[in-house]
């Protein structure tokens, strides 16, 4: 098992990136609180393509924010 890292550390270390965690720590309210960082990228597609390399519970985290000058209509 790799070293677990808190979500705070992940957000500081991998800014504006997509991060794939193995064996994530999940709070009772289903928030990702940390896990083993197994892959990170600016490209979400790369994260998706690497999913099958890792077996077991996983989590995907995005550490960026939607730019202030961008509106979103979903």
């Amino acid at each position, binding site marked *: 098992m790799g070293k677990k890292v808190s979500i705070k550390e992940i957000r500081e270390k991998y800014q504006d990136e997509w991060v794939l965690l193995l064996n994530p720590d999940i709070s009772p*309210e289903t928030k990702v609180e940390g896990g083993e960082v197994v892959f990170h990228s600016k490209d979400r*597609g790369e994260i*998706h393509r690497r999913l099958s390399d890792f077996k077991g519970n996983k*989590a*995907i985290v995005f550490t960026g924010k*939607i730019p202030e000058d961008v509106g*979103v209509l*979903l």
Partner: protein
Amino acid sequence: MVAITFDSNERLIFLDIGVTSFDGSWVIYLPVVLDTGATTTILPADILADLGYDPGNPGLPRTRMITGSGIGYSPYITVKSLIVGGEKIDNVGVLCHDLPTETGIDGLLGLNFLKNFDITIEYSSGMLHFRRLIS
């Protein structure tokens, strides 16, 4: 009643949800937006495929999807369960569709999931309250 914190300074309501694998033995947690304007929950095909579902199956029903930018058709899959705020709902229908990466999310939590709850959004405290309607 479940209480979930959210960042009320963000312009969307971001949540982490869990999606159970096809065989029910493991879960992927991913970021979504709570979307009361979406009839159906949306998840990316790549993630559903990794979970053991078959979003590429040409025999799947395809649902007409009306969005702000037009009309498209997406495969419709029923996932074993979705987990939000520690509450698990079984057999939830999802549309397989990739949202633009710039949104910073992997999917939308739509009304077909949310209708299982009475939901209160408290912007003053940054809290969501989910009260389950069915067990």
